[in-house]
């Protein structure tokens, strides 16, 4: 599997995700500069990491969505290649219209760094093959603007197509406003593109992969990608 992690000037979790990929797949990811126009040849997974791509003082990800490298990322996605956007990466994917919807400020208007519970909605995707539908994962979030929303029509379509991959729930996997920490519509934490090859999610699975540091519920996501890519 050949992963490429895109480095925007204000990315700051590129190291976290690169080390998770190395730890789980055994193969180091290539780091790609935002001003480059091409992905390394043979890339089969593109990761847009967390951070504050261009400072993000206005709309998070709005400038990054127009960076030179994004044309290559879009072409990769159009060809059905896997694109994973985590946190700021999710915001960038929405701004680049590779995913629908937007991420607004958290409902309580504060940055939040804490562990949350995510319910896996389906396991027949490249990102969740190693989980079971209904599994509840303990994964940290760290964002100020993760409140997912879209117009009614889009939400209906996303739900109808089964493109909501993760939701914020209680530890038992129940939908509950109390556990939807940022106020996202339908407690949406992660969504897929129409072809299921592009995933954006706010939580950080890459921060829960090392048993010496904490829980390891995030490993399954990277193991799933590895399984899918190595089978291809």
């Amino acid at each position: 599997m050949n992963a490429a992690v895109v480095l925007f000037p204000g990315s700051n979790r590129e190291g976290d995700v690169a080390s998770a990929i190395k730890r789980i797949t055994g193969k180091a990811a290539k780091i790609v500069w935002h001003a480059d126009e091409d992905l390394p040849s043979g890339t089969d997974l593109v990761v847009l990491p967390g951070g504050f791509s261009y400072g993000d003082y206005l709309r998070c990800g709005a400038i990054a969505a127009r960076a030179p490298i994004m044309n290559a990322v879009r072409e990769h996605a159009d060809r059905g290649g896997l694109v994973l956007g985590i946190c700021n990466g999710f915001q960038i994917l929405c701004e680049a219209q590779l995913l629908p919807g937007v991420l607004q400020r958290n409902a309580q208007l504060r940055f939040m760094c804490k562990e949350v519970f995510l319910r896996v909605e389906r396991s027949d995707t490249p990102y969740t093959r190693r989980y079971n539908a209904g599994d509840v994962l303990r994964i940290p979030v760290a964002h100020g603007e993760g409140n997912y929303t879209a117009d009614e029509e889009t939400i209906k379509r996303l739900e109808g197509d089964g493109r909501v991959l993760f939701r914020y729930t209680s530890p038992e996997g129940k939908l509950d406003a109390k556990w939807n920490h940022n106020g996202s519509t339908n407690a949406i934490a992660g969504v897929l593109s129409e072809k299921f090859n592009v995933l954006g999610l706010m939580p950080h699975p890459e921060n829960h992969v090392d048993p010496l540091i904490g829980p390891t519920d995030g490993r399954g996501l990277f193991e799933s990608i590895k399984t899918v890519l190595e089978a291809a």
Partner: protein
Amino acid sequence: MNISNTVKITPELVAEHGLKPDEYERILKLIGREPSITELGIFSAMWNEHCSYKSSKVHLKTLPVTGKIVIQGPGENAGVIDIGDGQACIFKMESHNHPSYIEPYQGATTGVGGILRDVFTMGARPIACLNALRFGSPDHPKTRHLVSGVVAGIGGYGNSFGVPTVGGSVGFHSRYDGNILVNAMAVGIADTDKIFYAKATGVGLPVVYLGSKTGRDGIHGATMASAEFGEGAEEKRPTVQVGDPFAEKLLLEACLEIMAKGCVVAIQDMGAAGLTCSAVEMGAKGDLGITLDLEKVPVREEAMTAYEMMLSESQERMLMVLKPGKEAEAEAIFTKWGLDFAIVGHTTDTLRFLIRHNGEEMADLPIKELGDQAPEYNRPFTETPKLPVLDASNVPAPKSLGDALEKLVASPDLCSKRWIWEQYDHLILNNTVQRPGGDAAVVRVHDGPKALALSTDVTPRYCEADPFEGGKQAVAECWRNLTAVGATPLAITDNLNFGNPEKPEIMGQFVGCIRGIKEACLALNFPVVSGNVSLYNETQGRGILPTPTIGGVGLLKDFQNSATLAFKSSGEAILVLGDTRGWLGQSAYLATIVGREEGAPPPVDLAAEKRAGDLVRDLIAKGRVTAVHDCSDGGLLVAIAEMAMASGIGAALELSPGGISPHAFWFGEDQARYVVTAPALALPEIEAAAKTAGVSAMRLGLTGGEQLILPAERPISVAELKKRHESWLPDYMAARN
């Protein structure tokens, strides 16, 4: 301000620059003529309290600053210690008190930015931030706004910059009503052979300006920070700078890249007093002159004068002396990161600080004297009178120990600070082994197994009552917190926050605290490697509580061999190591439950402190104890409650021993104590080890159940206690004035 450089210097102008008449006389004598306005500005920047340490220097010199592990003590951008394997830990703490009161978000933000720059200027990649915050009384109408702004600002900077904020301390007291404290600490890692210093060497080398452009923000910031607040402090808002963590992140990456390429001779960040202070330090430390041509300085505003450029405190800027021939390579790196890069001057052999603007000479001053000849005061001081020891019999007992405990754990000082640290990204970089909420944060170094333990501590109540014991206690508590996770304490940074040093009683507090810090550092082999002094923390003539914040770093050879405070399982014995005498003077119980702040604070027996700490560290290393917690504010019962709340496991406690009244036993704040748990089988060995070490060990009860049970008291549900503990701060912040 658009006045001519040759404007007549009047006594009013001198006073507006925060210089005393005798200090101005000193300037006249030094340069033998009337200074230009730019020169006056430069002197005011270099000779204010914040930059010159003129009131504190004579006392700071007494602190122990050397040791086997010390690579660089105070005097550089940050302190450097050896943590083995060719690695160094670089750290410092600094205050941003005045700006944070005036504009809490930006004040706190730029405090974090400044301290991060101090650390990466030396070649280190920052791995953790901490802070120590003091706010006014929760009832004060501005407190909520200040808490909200400061916390958002600290988070806003660190979260975007990409460094985890892993720990700190927060307290409230009416004495901070008009003058809050924001102390920020940064910790970084570098190879011991790749550390960069401010000292310039070599004549005729290019002096390079890096980072963001210079604007009119922050002019006179350091002078403002060296004065008391009166009415209308808010009018000083224009002296507060605006932080840009994105620019700082770029600056970090560009600086580390340029350093790795071997381009750098000397580097200094532009902090307080910006271009002035950084250029003078680089030149003076290297016995070189510096010439600057200001028309080359990247500016973001039109028609800036020399005076403005020399005093601007615009953030995210650096000054660097480059190796000859490296200009193109260095510039390419900065251009890649989208940052300004300009050669603004060169080093000379004249020992003059020469400032030109469009060819016109604006200032020409002796560079060494700007720093060395700053006034130095040995200000008169009066010792703080000793307070009588408060006998426990003069402190009323609560109706119920349980009620008092419930009130204490839900008090502003002892409640959970989750609402605060959840706004800080404390997980980024994937190395946070122990998250906020424990005795000390534990951060893995690279891939481990090595880790650093980090903590910030001070008990201002104690320092106010007895500066000497309070100074000792701040150091001892920091040492204890590092020990409680199993780390070997290595060194500290100190952030000394006091009132107006021109008042002998305030100076007495300062001198007393320094003496206490010194004694504790010597006894515990815990040198001071960096620090910062913040004086004039007064509003309308009333000083803050003396607050010498101590930031400590400890080393864990293998972080898997560390301890946490949560109870681990039921049926384990709870022990206190160290003597319990029931000291209630200046205790949290006395202040919170009885509403009095009286008596002498608990004395710190440093030999006992060392014995207990060394014992606990050894027990952790041998895996004999299952949970460890430092016993401090609130005493034994609060410590046990915290261990229970962290785990959800309760405890059944025994009757307190005869000879001490129960409330003094459970809430007294005797020092040098730890609460530990261990399986019954390990008890004989622990008790024998304690006996050998000369530390008393007393059994307090057993873990288990879901309640805290005290003899003859109603049981307290741990879940209920935790709910109270967790809810005070969110409830307070959600309420309206």
